[in-house]
């Protein structure tokens, strides 16, 4: 599945916005504070030009200074009110933004903990990350700032019109003629500018990934001597960037002066038309000056309204993206009855959990992946008594992991049942099963933190001593002690400071400390050198005793002693049985085995020595 950038919606859609409401609800008090002080702010902004009018008409025109102290006092109080309300309003908005963002991020994160592997298998991490982090930020910012800004601008414009109409309705109506032109102009340009800015952002993210590739692939580029080729490609992208950015800038460069000219038109109208009215003594000169203030002052809020409206619509896309994530149904879900009895993943009722023995039974199991129609498993039956070691072999990409994913309930069968200790595992909670699984992956993932912390991830209450014992059991102690700070060495992001082999050893220790009933080793020893692998294998044999385990391997020598070997080809189980039985069958397993030691035989016959 390929994931493309979603198209942006074009029209305002209230249904999309309704979905943000639940996130706003817990903070309605803060929202109310923001609203109220926001309203006061716009009121003050409407009143301020009237002071100039009053000063001109009542002091200057009447040539008196009587009452100027009172005037100053009232003016001062209004400014003080403005100070307080601006402060409280911005403070409220800032908090609101973070509250909403925080709640949304948490909702996404919690939901992600429940989503199934089928989702993660087809969705790149960067894609999810941008939803959890940037989309929620944009939505929160929009609700907390842009919407309140719009309200301020709306109240302000409305108030100014009322004030102008009250002062002189004829002049007010003439000025209002400019408003639709201004609004249309802004609407037209803002949409274009948004469109181009999006383009610029897209190219920008390409530049970032080019840097990323240039740096991550530095070693490869050097060995292939393709530095110049890379640079040429990079320059192409930066060239595109320059063209697009200049185009975007050109739009603003046209738009801003046009608006200013519109503003000057309004001033010109006030001057000429108002001047005539003053001359005919139909208008006080102070009112004229207030009008000029309003005529100029109204432009910024109108622009802002249009700009914010365009952005408001663009944020719908962010909301849709976050909601799509939240709407994503987990493929594997506990039923309400199960949650009732055993608790959910987030609030487990451990006291009700049955102890696990580790009998696993596949009963008439069929399975196909959600993105594929072909059944990779049909009517499959297998009994795995507790303590059995099941090996799964086959070529790369043959589907060896499917069985394990089913047994661990990372996927559920599409037909039939899987029984654990004789009970359908869907009648137990996922966490119950997962708490009893030890998993070592081919590409082990470590979390940033120390080696100690990483091993302890397997059992959170393990003491340092227990951690060290677990490490020793799989020879990870040798790797740990070789490092500068021993067990306290920081492994770096994703364990990046360690070699693949070291990571595997530590993930091994992490699985062992959990003391699970069920063990999964997924090609766990492929990057460890032979001698270390020997050590691990001996330790594993000891540790697997009494536990049910699955071993996925392509080196057949490692699984000869397994109780059951399942041979997988093209996603289907071809053969199953003990090593000896399978060899006697002379089937595909026999073929694979022969293949692996044929080389040695060939060598003995001297064929390779020709090279």
């Amino acid at each position: 599945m390929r994931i493309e950038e979603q198209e942006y919606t074009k029209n305002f859609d209230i249904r999309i916005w309704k979905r943000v409401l639940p996130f706003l609800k817990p903070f309605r008090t803060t929202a109310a504070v923001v609203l109220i002080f926001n309203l006061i702010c716009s009121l003050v902004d409407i009143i301020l030009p009237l002071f100039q009018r009053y000063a001109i008409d009542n002091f200057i025109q009447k040539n008196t200074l009587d009452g100027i102290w009172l005037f100053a006092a009232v003016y001062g109080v209004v400014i003080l009110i403005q100070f307080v309300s601006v402060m409280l309003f911005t403070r409220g908005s800032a908090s609101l933004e973070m509250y909403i963002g925080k709640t949304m991020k948490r909702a996404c994160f919690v939901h992600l903990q429940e989503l199934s592997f089928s989702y993660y298998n087809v969705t790149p991490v960067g894609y999810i990350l941008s939803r959890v982090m940037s989309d929620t930020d944009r939505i929160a910012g929009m609700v907390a700032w842009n919407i309140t800004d719009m309200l301020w601008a709306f109240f302000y414009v409305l108030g100014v019109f009322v004030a102008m109409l009250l002062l002189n309705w004829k002049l007010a109506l003439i000025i209002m003629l400019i408003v639709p032109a201004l609004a249309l102009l802004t609407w037209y340009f803002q949409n274009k500018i948004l469109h181009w800015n999006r383009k610029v952002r897209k190219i920008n993210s390409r530049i970032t990934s080019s840097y990323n590739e240039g740096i991550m692939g530095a070693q490869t580029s050097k060995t292939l001597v393709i530095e110049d080729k890379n640079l040429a490609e990079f320059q192409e992208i930066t060239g595109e960037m320059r063209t697009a950015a200049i185009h975007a800038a050109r739009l603003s460069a046209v738009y801003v002066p046009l608006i200013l000219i519109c503003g000057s038109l309004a001033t010109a109208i006030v001057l000429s038309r108002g001047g005539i009215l003053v001359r005919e003594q139909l208008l006080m000169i102070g009112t004229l000056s207030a009008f000029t203030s309003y005529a100029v002052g109204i432009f910024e809020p109108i622009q802002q309204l249009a700009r914010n409206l365009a952005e408001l619509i663009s944020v719908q896309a962010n909301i849709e993206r976050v909601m799509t994530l939240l709407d994503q149904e987990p493929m594997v879900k506990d039923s309400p009855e199960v949650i009732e009895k055993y608790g959910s993943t987030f609030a487990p009722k451990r006291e009700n959990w049955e102890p696990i023995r580790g009998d696993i039974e596949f009963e008439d199991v069929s399975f196909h992946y959600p993105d594929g129609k072909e059944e990779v498993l049909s009517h499959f039956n297998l009994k795995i008594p507790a303590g059995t070691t099941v090996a799964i072999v086959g070529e790369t990409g043959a589907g060896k992991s499917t069985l394990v994913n089913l047994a661990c309930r990372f996927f559920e069968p599409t037909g039939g049942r899987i029984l654990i200790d004789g009970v359908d595992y869907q009648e137990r909670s996922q966490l119950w099963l997962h708490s009893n699984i030890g998993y070592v992956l081919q590409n082990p993932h470590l979390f940033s933190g120390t080696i100690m912390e990483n091993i302890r991830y397997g059992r959170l209450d393990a003491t340092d001593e227990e951690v060290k014992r677990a490490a020793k059991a799989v020879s990870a102690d040798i790797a740990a002690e070789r490092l500068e700070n021993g067990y306290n060495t920081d492994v770096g992001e994703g364990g990046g400071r360690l070699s693949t082999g070291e990571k595997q050893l530590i993930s091994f220790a992490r699985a062992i400390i959990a003391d699970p009933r069920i063990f999964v080793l997924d090609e766990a020893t492929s990057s460890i050198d032979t001698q270390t692998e020997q050590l691990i294998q001996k330790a594993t044999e000891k540790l697997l005793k009494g536990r049910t385990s699955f071993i996925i391997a392509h080196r057949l020598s490692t699984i000869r002693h397994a109780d059951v070997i399942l041979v997988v080809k093209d996603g289907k189980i071809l053969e199953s049985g003990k090593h000896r039985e399978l060899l006697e069958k002379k089937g595909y397993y026999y073929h694979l085995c022969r293949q692996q030691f044929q080389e040695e035989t060939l060598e003995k016959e001297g064929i390779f020595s020709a090279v």
Partner: protein
Amino acid sequence: MNHTMGTLRKFRSIARFLKGSAHFLVLALAAGMLNTMFNALTPQIIRHTVDALTGEGGYPGTRFLLLAAAAVVVSASLAGIFTYASSICISKGSEGFLKTMRDQLYRHIQRLPYTWHVQHKTGDIIQRCTNDVEIIRNFICTQLMEVIRIVFLIVLYLTIMFTMNLRLSLIVLLFIPLIMGYSAFFYSRISRRFLLADEAEGELTAKVQENLTGVRVVRAFGREMYEIERFDEKNNTFANLWIKVGRLMSVYWGAGDFMTGIQIMTILIIGTVFTVQGHMTLGELVAFISYNSSLAWPIRSLGRVLSNMSKASVSIDRVSYILDAEEEKGHPDDLKPPMNQEICFHHVSFSYGSDEPVLKDLDFTIPPGSTFGVLGSTGSGKSTFVHLLDRLYELPEDSGSITIGGVDIRRIDLSHLRKNIGIVLQEPFLFSRSIGENISVTREDPSFSDIREAARTACVDDAVTQFDQGYDTMVGERGVTLSGGQKQRVAIARMLLQKAPIMIFDDSLSAVDAETDAKIRAELKSHMGSSTVILISHRITTLMQADFIIVLEDGHIQESGTHEQLLAQGGIYRRIYDIQMNTDDDLLMEGGKA
């Protein structure tokens, strides 16, 4: 302010990137100043109109008023034209500057030695190349320009105001340092908090990312709740820090508005008194008030811009850190000898930094056209050996020498050397292009049949043709995810197309199953031709076909010889062989019995 001066000094180190765009910036400045001048005209027109309306000389005619209105529109239009010109010039100048800087950084990073790359984190370098570059661009093309324009505006407006009323202008002058200083002080205070909050955001992002990449581990251990608790910690810290920033900002905004309000109020009231007392006309007062409010924002933003400029200083340092790193050296008299020659290691020792040496006194010869095997355990120094031969790490002069055909590789032209050595790494890197482009990346004009041929040899053709888009299938985040084995095989195909006389396989079939491994090696054998092949592995089956094998242990050659000789010696090689073979011998026996 000191920071700002420091920034200006450092600015000289990146001024070279302005080549080709500087004239745009100068033009933008000129246009910006003209724009400011035309903007200053409108209050004057209003002043004369108001004076005419209230003056002693009787009311002006309609013609006068219309003329005034026309003058307002004309001056605004002229100002508009210059705003346009200025914006266009700024964007051309700044985008040009940005491109030059980005290209130069990319070029430079490509040429930095591999040692440098190993020592630095990708995320950090990218941060420097994107965020810091953006900050520098803003500093030069927005902030610096803005400062110049604002200073010009303040000087121009004040001059006009002084000509209208001296005493009132002096009062305005009093407010300027107050508001500006307050702004600057506040922004320098808050920028530290911004930094903290930014860091918290980075940590939160890292937490989420790690949870997502490690989702399989989280699930397998049932650690969902533990993860949510960790997430909540970071999420709360992040939100609280930003709320604190928000609170400070709200005080700043409120107080800023308050001071501006007081300034405007003072001018209005004192101006009213002066007008009533006959020291100035009403028109002058209206114009004065208009200039005064036009000054309010520039003054406040000047304070902010000045304090923000200190950020740029840090960014310049961070970018210069990359630019000042030394590129891989090349000499004009470097040699380009034929490379299908004997490779000799003469007493080579090597250590990373001051640590324990990873290679100790390696001394051996690889005859041309032969196959040379290296067996070593994790950390035995086998990869260092490859890095030295390809000069990814430079061998110091006094640590022995490596020669090809008798020529010291340190004297060989770097790209000549690397073009003639093909390497497949254990964890190969594929570029996010199509598979076909990845395979043919070293070729100028590859033919499709060549690409397929190489892919067939590397046993990856079947896998590729199964994809819907075949060789046009994209690799990486925006395309398919290849398995480790498929990646290795694509990398082998890529290396084959390089047609190098020296080929190195650094554990490069580790992720491929035994059957495919054997197939590939059989295919390769018939295609290796006269190339010298170096095989590095911990699988004996891969190595035993070599003409000569060395066993690396703790950085020195523990054993060497042909496969048979090594077996006869009964050392480590024998032991590893036994471990790997014995198990297989058992298999054989059991298989034989069957």
